[in-house]
């Protein structure tokens, strides 16, 4: 029931209302350039020499998009307009792809939505062999992308950021040491001081980890439901909107709960809130937000150029500097300390493969069961 986007700020969610008009306008105007239409996969080299004069981007890293737009237009002369839209939930852009896209050129898409779109032929394969945005990726990210976003030797998405889904965020003043287990969310002494995320996949996966099961393929759904029912009354709320959840940590309405690393970073470094993330012994789940080009994109070359430019190290590092979301690149710490303090750069230390569990797209049966369990839990 994730109503709001993972990373869109409150400002951006509200801005999306106005942005829709601009994006619609872009759809009407897009693709009018007098150059031959090519599919992105047919682009032979980067930087692209010939490209359309505009690009319509749907990306919820709004602060970064503002920064990148200026840099992009400076590097690519002749890009007159970059229409950007911050969406509040992936279903917004997905429904447009279902209806037959002819306006969106570029999307920042989360893991499961990439797979869903790919399975329905809504995405263009990308010429990753030619792209520096692909070469700079950490091997882990590249392997994950090839495995989950690849079909028949083609890759359909390039990771833009690696995201904890979710982070185990806690108040550093309340806890003398970081909680070492997801079990902290079942600690009755913390009743009324925690929350859970109102998203079946996330909450059920946490419960799976807590009960020692594989969150991607659990074998005892009854146990997951049982522990979530036990946990139910300990919560202040089941949060559904990322900005409000972050505010609850800042206002110290809660001291522990699942969030996202970027939101934790923003609260810690932009709002001076005494919070941090913990690395639970059961493992840390992670996912990616990805650059993709939908089929029907009216400005495919400009869109590919946007990915190539945004996927290079200076742009990726800037995403961390602006919003705290970690770029999945090699030599991460060295790159980050070029633009942020050592303390801020240390925030990205969570990328230890031994403790990471990729949030794999769920099969239909598991998705249904998680949904049933969560509806039962929330209905009380």
């Amino acid at each position: 029931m994730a109503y709001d986007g993972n990373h869109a700020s409150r400002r951006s969610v509200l801005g999306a209302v106005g942005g829709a008009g601009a994006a619609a306008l872009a759809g009407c105007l897009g693709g009018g350039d007098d150059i031959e239409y090519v599919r992105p996969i047919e682009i032979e080299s980067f930087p692209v020499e010939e490209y359309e004069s505009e690009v319509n981007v749907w990306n919820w890293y709004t602060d970064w998009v503002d920064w990148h737009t200026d840099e992009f237009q400076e590097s690519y002369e002749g890009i007159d307009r970059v229409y950007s839209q911050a969406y509040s939930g992936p279903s917004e852009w997905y429904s447009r792809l279902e209806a037959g896209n002819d306006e969106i050129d570029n999307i920042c898409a989360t893991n499961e939505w990439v797979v869903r779109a790919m399975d329905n032929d809504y995405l263009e394969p990308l010429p990753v062999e030619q792209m520096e945005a692909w070469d700079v990726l950490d091997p882990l990210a590249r392997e994950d992308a090839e495995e989950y976003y690849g079909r028949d030797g083609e890759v359909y998405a390039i990771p833009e950021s690696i995201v904890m889904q979710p982070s185990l965020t806690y108040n550093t003043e309340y806890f003398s040491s970081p909680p070492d287990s997801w079990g902290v969310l079942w600690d009755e002494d913390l009743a009324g001081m925690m929350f859970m995320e109102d998203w079946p996949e996330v909450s059920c996966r946490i419960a799976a980890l807590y009960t020692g099961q594989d969150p991607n393929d659990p074998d005892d759904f009854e146990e997951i439901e049982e522990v979530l029912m036990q946990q139910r009354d300990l919560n202040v709320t089941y949060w559904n909107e990322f900005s409000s959840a972050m505010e609850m940590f800042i206002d110290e309405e809660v001291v522990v709960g699942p969030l996202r690393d970027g939101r934790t970073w923003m609260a810690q470094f932009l709002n001076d809130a005494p919070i941090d993330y913990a690395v639970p012994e059961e493992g840390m789940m992670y996912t990616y937000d990805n650059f993709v080009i939908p089929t029907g994109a009216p400005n495919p070359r400009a869109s590919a150029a946007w990915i190539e430019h945004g996927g290079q190290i200076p742009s990726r590092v800037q995403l961390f500097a602006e919003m705290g979301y970690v770029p999945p690149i090699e030599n991460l710490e060295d790159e980050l300390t070029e633009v942020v303090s050592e303390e801020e750069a240390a925030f990205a230390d969570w990328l230890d493969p031994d403790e990471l569990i990729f949030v794999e797209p769920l099969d239909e049966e598991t998705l249904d069961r998680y949904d049933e369990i969560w509806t039962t839990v929330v209905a009380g």
Partner: protein
Amino acid sequence: MSTPTPDSGSTAGGVRQRSRQYLRQILDAFRDRPRARLLVLVGIPAFVLLLFFILPLAYMVWLSFHDGMPPASLTLENYLNVVTTDLYLRVVWRTTVLTVQTTALVVILGYTLAYSMARFSKRTTLLLLLVILPFWTNYIVRMYALINIFSRDGLLDWMQIVTGLAQDPSGIMYTHTAVLLGLTYVWLPLATLPFYASLTNMDDNLIEAAKDLGAGPIETFFTVTLPMTKNGVIGGIILVAIPTFGAFVTPTLLGGTDQLMIGMVIENQFTEAFNWPFGSALSVIVSAFVVLMLLVAVKFGASDVVTRRSDTQ
């Protein structure tokens, strides 16, 4: 731009005259052919209604009888799942309770507001403007405003401390009260307007007559004013109850762990669980509830409202 000549003037006049003739011929043709007139006047809106309302609704009903996205086999399982699973019945019951509470609160507040505007105020235009004002603001923006008011250390807490009502309030966010107040706030203007319209359309002489016959203010209200404005009240109830029953944004943003409404379950089926057939079945049930509400309203005398006729007729 060329200067008009006498010839060009007469040419323009001729064009105008020919246009008038064509128009007159078309109108005459329609006058002589009532079926063609009916086709144009009713056919176009009926076609739009069919295309953008009836067909999507029919598709939703059709989808609700499948066990997956078409082409999939037909089944009644989605409906059986709703009516035989205690969980969904509980959610529907909870939704109904919240809908009744919200509607009752809106009727009491809205009617009082409309009554005071119609009877006691001279600045009705300004007051009406203030009632309508929230509609000019985006729904989500209004919800965030409420979050700031209801949160711990928010405006509500501050007012309680200042007035001495509470020493250490902790906000009402994530509670049933927050959802109830949120829904009431959102739908109050929608009900106030029909209340106000029915009150201003009422003949004041009836009230005077009741008083002359010895009725007190309360008796006059319950025997004259309220029955005479019944249609407006039922119209307001319909306008509030229907959207409240399907609400999902307000309970999602303001509610806590106990505020699951049927609209939230439906939204989840379409956007997260991707079980569109089951979401469609739930939607059909909600739609059936709406139709039932309209039928009940017609039975209890709101036929004028439903058919959009004035109270005074």
